[in-house]
């Protein structure tokens, strides 16, 4: 699996990704006021930067994503999370564009996060890690672009929390984003979404193995809490229709009657337990607390005098906003609010609500209509940017 996938990206492509220490020249000041003396950023690139440095696309990953966009995940061995879109000749064409994806600040796949050693104490950061924001994540990504010598992205693209980062990019660094694709996202985290995150966090914190976030020092891991957090969150990524189609009320394979107990009678229970138990193998509980908090704090309008349109005033970026009809985590009205704000500043914006019954996760899945729209938008943007056409 890994050999052919990686071979497609050239002999010098390292499927494990790259890493750089940033902020050594000037500290990275976070929204909470803390200055990070330096931050390690783990990232991956695909394709080649053209001599004009005008073909870079930044992919922003979601809450539990990482920079293994089109490489097998080093811990799970699963194919990259956007392998459907990223590759030679694909929609995000690695033969034409230079794709960058970095693990977010606070993450646990190589970028500095709570499980790493705090140089000041010599111990893991744990709960001593500063509370981060989506703005902080984007600031670190901007430093990464500085490091790579890229002034302006051809495109910033991402779904869910990745879409929040895309919006933040357009608000904070408008001149550095030629085109932007925020997918299945919102300009602010809703009360309902904060509530779901709080359930997840409380599940982790209630796990005795969490140990006030110092589980690494005690050689324990709050696996049950993190698994429950994942189970609850996973429900929000799907739709009732999708869950029903997949499982209905079906009992597990070897059962033909209720057990009259609390084992996993139903297939959907077994599925969720599996989602929870595999998640803890690849994700850090404290990272989950910090990144969900960053999403909760995200409110682009609040950062601009309560008027979302102010975040985009004067923007020259070309936008393509997309939502999915059955997504109840980031429902279409959230995307519409972004579109209306962009209209209010007469921005160049396209918007489509894709009919899909797959819920929030649709942005990760094979959705032909979405891919056709996205492909057209990127082709059009490439034309306006003066990049060679497909096959040219």
């Amino acid at each position, binding site marked *: 699996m890994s050999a052919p996938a990686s071979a497609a990206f050239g002999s010098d492509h390292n499927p494990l990704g790259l890493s750089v220490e940033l902020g050594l020249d000037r500290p990275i000041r976070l929204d909470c006021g803390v200055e990070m003396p330096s931050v390690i950023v783990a990232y991956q690139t695909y394709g080649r930067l053209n001599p004009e440095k005008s073909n870079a696309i930044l992919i922003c990953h979601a809450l539990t994503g990482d920079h293994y966009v089109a490489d097998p995940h080093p811990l799970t061995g699963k194919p990259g999370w956007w392998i459907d879109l990223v590759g030679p000749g694909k929609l995000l064409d690695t033969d034409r564009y230079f794709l960058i994806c970095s693990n977010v600040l606070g993450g646990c796949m190589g970028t500095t996060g709570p499980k790493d050693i705090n140089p000041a104490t010599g111990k893991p950061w744990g709960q001593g890690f500063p509370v981060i924001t989506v703005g902080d994540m984007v600031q670190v990504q901007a430093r990464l672009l500085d490091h790579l010598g890229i002034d302006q992205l051809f495109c910033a693209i991402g779904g869910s929390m990745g879409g929040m980062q895309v919006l933040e990019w357009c608000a904070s660094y408008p001149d550095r984003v030629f085109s932007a694709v925020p997918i299945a996202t919102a300009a602010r985290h809703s009360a309902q979404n904060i509530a779901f995150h709080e359930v997840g966090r409380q599940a982790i914190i209630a796990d005795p193995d969490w140990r006030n976030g110092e589980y690494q020092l005690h050689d324990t891991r709050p696996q049950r809490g993190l698994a429950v957090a994942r189970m609850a969150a996973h429900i929000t990524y799907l739709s009732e229709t999708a869950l029903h189609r997949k499982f209905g009320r079906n009992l597990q394979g070897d059962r033909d009657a209720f057990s009259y107990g609390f084992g996993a009678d139903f297939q959907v229970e077994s599925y969720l337990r599996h989602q929870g138990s595999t998640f803890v193998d690849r994700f850090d509980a404290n990272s989950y607390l910090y990144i969900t908090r960053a999403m909760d704090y995200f409110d682009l309008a609040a950062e601009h005098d309560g008027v979302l349109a102010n975040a985009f005033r004067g923007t020259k970026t070309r936008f393509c906003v997309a939502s999915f009809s059955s997504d109840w985590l980031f429902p279409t009205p959230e995307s519409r609010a972004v579109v209306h704000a962009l209209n209010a500043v007469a921005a160049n914006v396209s*918007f489509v609500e894709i009919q899909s019954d797959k819920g929030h996760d649709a942005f990760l899945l094979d959705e032909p209509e979405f891919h056709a729209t996205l492909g057209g938008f990127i082709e059009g943007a490439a034309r306006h940017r003066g990049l060679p056409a497909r096959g040219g």
Partner: protein
Amino acid sequence: MMMMTLNNGALRVDLKLIADMVEPGSRVLDVGCGEGTLLSWLGKHKNVDGRGIELSMAGVSAAVAQGLSVIQGDADTDLKDYPAGAFDTVILSQTLQATRAPMDVLGNMLRIGRRAIISFPNFGHWRVRAGLAVGGRMPVTDTLTYEWYDTPNIHFCTIRDFLELCRVLNIRIDTGIALDRDGGVLPMAGTGWLANIFAAQGLFVLSRNG
């Protein structure tokens, strides 16, 4: 909904009339742009900075897929956000009769655009009158193709009704054109009595008075 193009990429006759009225290099919003046929033509031939609004996912998807900037939405809900004077021309082709609040739509078009180009089926056409008067049935014609129970058209008007609304709203009519069933131009003089009987659709260029 309707066939937007004839073969060879030529524009439908009424769209061609509209296209001819658009100034080269201007900013254009096409409300109800379908798959973007008019916008695409204007982009290629008149170098306009075009935007579109379209109700159907398929229409939006097809338009964006050819590189146009189109949002999924409708005239009733999505015009109010644009700032005043954002466009030189706002186009509403064959859609006014399907809006919930035509007065607000008209007002918004002339707020966000320096001028508006509007075409709509004329409910005063003699075939419509005959359908109701002689047949006693709700009219179904070439331009009004729906049965009463499945029509998206909820606010029909005649050309004279439209002229009266423009008077009430103090909207200036820069150009008024009456079109027959094939898109041929008929004379529209004076109060529009004759046009109101013989035109299948009306096409108007509007601007704010004063």
